[in-house]
Each structure stands twice: as C-alpha cells, then as structure tokens.
C-alpha cells in the first residue's frame, strides 16, 4: 500500500476516542458467529473467537452486509464492534487440526449465533482500532472456551467436507450459492476450505482480499464474454460520510478506483488512485485491499446484468468519516450498483454531471488518475472493426 495512504489513515484513527465493553475474566455470551485471526508474528498468529456479553441473535455485530441496507449509523456500527470481546491463542497457521482451531472452524461454519462461555487469562482490555481492519473491543488470552451445539450452514458444510475442492473453487461456489461475503471470508480464514493438506489459517485482513480477488477474477472471466454496453451509465450512493460514483463506459473491461479524503482532519485534500487496463491487474494494488473489494462489487453487478464495460469509480470521504474496514467500500459500491442509473450519451456530459455532484473540482481527480485522463482521448479497438466492410467478419459470434 502507498505509505502515504497508510500514514494518513493512521492519523485519522489515532485521534478518535472509542469505548469498548467492560467484561470480567469469565464471559458468558454469544458469538455472532465471529472469529479473528491476527497477522502479527505470522506464521504463528493469534487466533480466536469474538464473543459479545449478550445472548441470542448477535449476527448483526459481525455482518457488514446488513449495516448499510438497514441504515445503521457510524455510531451504531462502532457500538456493535466495541461490544465484541476477542479471545486469542497463539497458533501456527498449519495447525488446523488442533482442538481450539476446530472449535473456531465450527463457529465459522455456523448458520446462527452460538451461546459461548470463555475464561480469559486476564480481564480483557483495550480495543482494536486501526487504519485497515474493522474494529472490535477488548481482548485477552483465552484459557477455556465452550460453545453450545451448532447448526452448520449447508453450503459451508459442503465445502468443508470436500477435501479435493480447491480453495478458489470453494470460494466461487459459495459466492454462487449466495453465502454472504463475510461468512465466506470467516470460513476461509480458519482453514475450512481447499485441498485437505493445504488448509491453513489465514489472517483476517489477508483473507478478505484473498476472497475479494478470487471472486473478482472468476467474475471477470465471465464478464469478458458479455457485450459492451451502448451508452454511459452512472450509479451513485452516499452513506457513512462517503459519496460513491460508479461510471460505466462503453469499452472493454478496464477499471479505476480513485478516492479523495476531504477535510477530515483539517484542510487536507488527499487523493489516491489505481487502475488496470483490459489485461487485468498484476501485482498488489498500491491503494490496498479496497481496490479488490470495489472491483469485486462492480463485477458482481456486471455479471448479474450480463454486460461488459469499463468502470471508473470515484469516492469522496468527508469530515466525520471513520475508517471501519473495506466493507465500507464493498457495501457502498454494491448499494450503488443496485440503484437506478443515470444514462449519458458521451463521456463529457457524464463527467460534467459527476463534477456537479462531487465537492472536489473534477480536475483534481483527473490529475491523479490514469483512465479518467485516457478514456476521453484513447480507445482500445478490437480486431472486429477492421473487417466490417471488406469481408465477412470471421470473428463474429455465430
């Protein structure tokens, strides 16, 4: 990730005061279900369940998919997260067969919240809040941990028992079965899918990007076969102090993500951008995991509509914005793609319209971006167009 962006987001999270839930050394509660795998000291990582001192259905605490559709505020979300207590134990990523990890696997395959009892070495303290992950409350080493009987999600159970199915195929299958992204990711992170001897614990942060990019790659292969749209379409959405604009342009697949952070700390205006041409992305994105999350969310919509397009995404984050994890991007973009779109005849009118909706002058976005500069000027042709008059196009689909 660009160190500039990391540094900036660190500053954003440093000055915020949050209060996490108070619990004692013994906790009797419910897990949404939820697990967290740290990346610190990889390949020996801290893994464990997250439990709230509440009973019954606690799903909402760890289900980002429902926060935006249910109009939860930033405060609601922070309160949800701060009531999650993280128990942890050091585990080698290959130890997917030890008792503790098996319990975590049971949790992440569960279809519902699970009543749980935990004993910690010390009273759980502090809170976990940083520039990249979804925050949560206090944590402590977990010494004893019991859970009630669990009913498993069918699709997750199926991939768990299929020890010949590759992890990428498992992720794709679950996505097709409409298993919520956060459930796929949790199950992925505790090593419940993939070819048996290659199953591993995967730190939560990495597992999110792994699932996003796996799904995106598969969807892209599908979208490349669809017909290119005939006009320009703009999808918009605002929530949690963010504005998102997704512009589909009538070209072969290409993608650009540009985000601006405006006046959140003071007078600052910071813009970060990354893109890919038709051939796709090679290497890790300089803007981090949000690139893959956004790409996955737009490809989901293109595949659903059976269309192909170039995609330009602009995001503005305003004063009051708090980094809460990449779900913010995924769910906002998904919601944008579910709105009716505004249609335009050409690139200039679509950009003029976007210019009227964003706070930063559009020129500043254009300056930092690549495709936004290039699309009005350059067009990648296809070979089809070179045979239109002379001979029967040998490439036309029959």
């Amino acid at each position, binding site marked *: 990730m660009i160190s500039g962006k990391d540094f900036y987001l660190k500053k954003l999270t440093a000055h915020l005061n949050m209060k996490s839930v108070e619990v004692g050394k013994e906790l009797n509660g419910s897990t949404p279900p939820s697990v967290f795998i740290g990346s610190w000291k990889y390949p020996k990582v801290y893994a464990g369940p997250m439990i709230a001192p509440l009973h019954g259905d606690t799903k909402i605490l760890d289900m980002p998919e429902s926060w935006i559709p249910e109009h939860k505020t930033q405060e609601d979300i922070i309160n949800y997260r701060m009531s999650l207590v993280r128990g942890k134990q050091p585990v080698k990523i290959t130890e997917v067969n030890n008792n503790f990890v098996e319990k975590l696997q049971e949790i992440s395959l569960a279809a519902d919240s699970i009543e749980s009892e935990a004993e910690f070495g010390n009273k759980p303290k502090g809170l976990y809040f940083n520039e990249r992950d979804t925050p949560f409350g206090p944590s402590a080493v977990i010494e004893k941990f019991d859970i009630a009987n669990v009913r498993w999600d069918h699709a997750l159970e199926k991939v768990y028992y299929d020890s010949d199915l590759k992890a990428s195929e498992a992720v794709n299958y679950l996505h097709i079965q409409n298993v919520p992204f956060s459930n796929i990711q949790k199950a992925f992170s505790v090593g419940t899918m993939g070819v048996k001897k290659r199953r591993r614990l995967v730190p939560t942060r990495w597992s999110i990007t792994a699932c996003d990019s796996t799904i995106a790659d598969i969807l892209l292969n599908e979208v490349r076969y669809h017909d290119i749209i005939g006009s320009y379409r703009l999808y918009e959405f605002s929530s949690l102090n963010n504005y998102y604009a997704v512009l589909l342009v009538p070209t072969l697949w290409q993608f650009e993500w540009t985000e601006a952070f405006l006046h959140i700390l003071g007078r600052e205006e910071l813009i970060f951008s990354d893109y890919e*041409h038709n*051939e796709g992305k090679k290497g890790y994105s300089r803007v981090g995991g949000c690139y893959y999350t956004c790409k996955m969310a737009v490809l989901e919509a293109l595949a659903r509509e059976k269309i192909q397009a170039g995609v330009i995404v602009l995001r503005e984050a305003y004063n009051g914005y708090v980094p809460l994890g990449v779900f913010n991007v995924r769910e906002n973009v998904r919601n944008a793609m579910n709105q009716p779109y505004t249609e335009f005849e050409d690139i200039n009118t679509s950009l003029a319209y976007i210019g009227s909706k964003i706070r930063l002058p559009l020129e500043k976005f254009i300056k930092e971006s690549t495709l936004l500069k290039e699309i009005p000027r*350059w*067009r990648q*042709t*296809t*070979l089809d167009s*070179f045979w239109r008059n002379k001979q029967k196009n*040998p490439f036309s689909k029959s």
Partner: protein
Amino acid sequence: MFKAVLNDPNILKTSFDAISSIVDEVQMQADNEGLRLDALDRSHITFVHLELKSDLFDEFSCIKPLKINVDTEELMKVLKRAKSDDIVELSTDEGNLIVTFEGEARRRFKIRLIDIEYEAPSPPELEYPTEFEVPFSLLKDSIQDIDIFSDKIALMVDKDKFISSAEGEFGDANIEYLHGEKIENKAKSVFSLEKIKEMLKADKFSDTVTLKLGNDMPLNLSLKMVTEDGELSFLLAPRIESEE
C-alpha cells in the same frame, strides 16, 4: 494416427509461452502438412497464428486431419518441464494430447482434450503500406525502455527510421533505429505495451521480427524461422486517439 517428434523442445516451449498468455484455450489442427493453430483472445484484441510444417519435425505423421483442443495453461505447465536436451514427442489418444519427453528418463504427460464450440477463426487479410524487419532483441529492448514511462507504445516507420516512443506523466522515451529497408510510406499506430509484451514472450522462435504497420491499423508481427518451416505471427488491434 498422429505423431510428431522434435529434437528441440524450445520451439514449442517458446511458442506456447506467448500463446498461453494470450488465449486460454486453442484448437490445433494437424494434417500431413504439419501443425497449425489460429486463435483469438477473449477481448478480440490479439489474434495469434502458429504454423509448424511437417519438415520442421524430425518425425511427423498424420494420416487424417485432426483437431486437438487444449487448455493452453495446462499444456504450458507440461512444456515448462522439458529439459533443453530432451526430445519431445506429441501424439494423441482418445481424449488426450500426449506429450513425451525423452531424455535421461522417458516422461509422459497426458493432457485432457477439451470441448471447443467454435471453429478456429481463419487468419484475416489486411493490406499494409509498410513491411520491414527488425532484430528481435531491438524490439524487446524498446519495449523495456518504453515500460519506464508508459503502458502504451507508438510505433512509427518512415523511409529511414523505425521509431518506438511513449509520452508518460513522468517522462518520455524515444528509440530510433535505422532500418535500411526500402520503405516509401510513413505509418504510425499506438498499441498496448502489455499486449506486445505477451507476444514477445516467444523470444526463442526467431532472431528477427517482420513488422507490418499502417496508420491506426492492427500491428502485424511475425516471427519466421530461417528455414521457413515455422511461423508464429500476431495481429494486435491498435489504440486510437479520438479526434475531439
């Protein structure tokens, strides 16, 4: 029955290094004249044509014409395992392409044939105002030079020079080469650098490249063996600047 033996695995290896990065699946056609393939990438930007004549092979027999449909990635994984002094043999059975490496040991791989619903596209014909040769290494170096500043490359030729250039946000690059050929026209087109890189993965096929360039026309890039027994050629759709 189909059987083709090559004393040098590099021709297949280098060809499929390029082909597998352009297309996911191909239909190879074998008959008594040799082995041939025509394929178009998913986005219809690059067309690839490979022809290996029967004379090129140390042993070649194909009694009746045959279509061999394979996943290029799987084939490439196998070809990568060839050692440079291995003898390669291609054959087929019901449902498989069989690749055998004969060296210290006899290593045999069966690659499942796949279903391809479409017929392989026939190579289209275009008339070009220019045609010239440049050393393969020159083109490869130019691509790396351009890569510093841009992801697209302008290729230009006039009566004296062949010029590769790019204008990037952080700098420009310009490579001029005196081609020494008889060219009367001037031609210029712009291409995706990434797409040209894919073609140039076939770096062991030939030391020279034949280029055909027009104005805002596809690039015709062809690698021919000195013996004329083999040819690997590509057609790449250009990027076009809008007139507004």
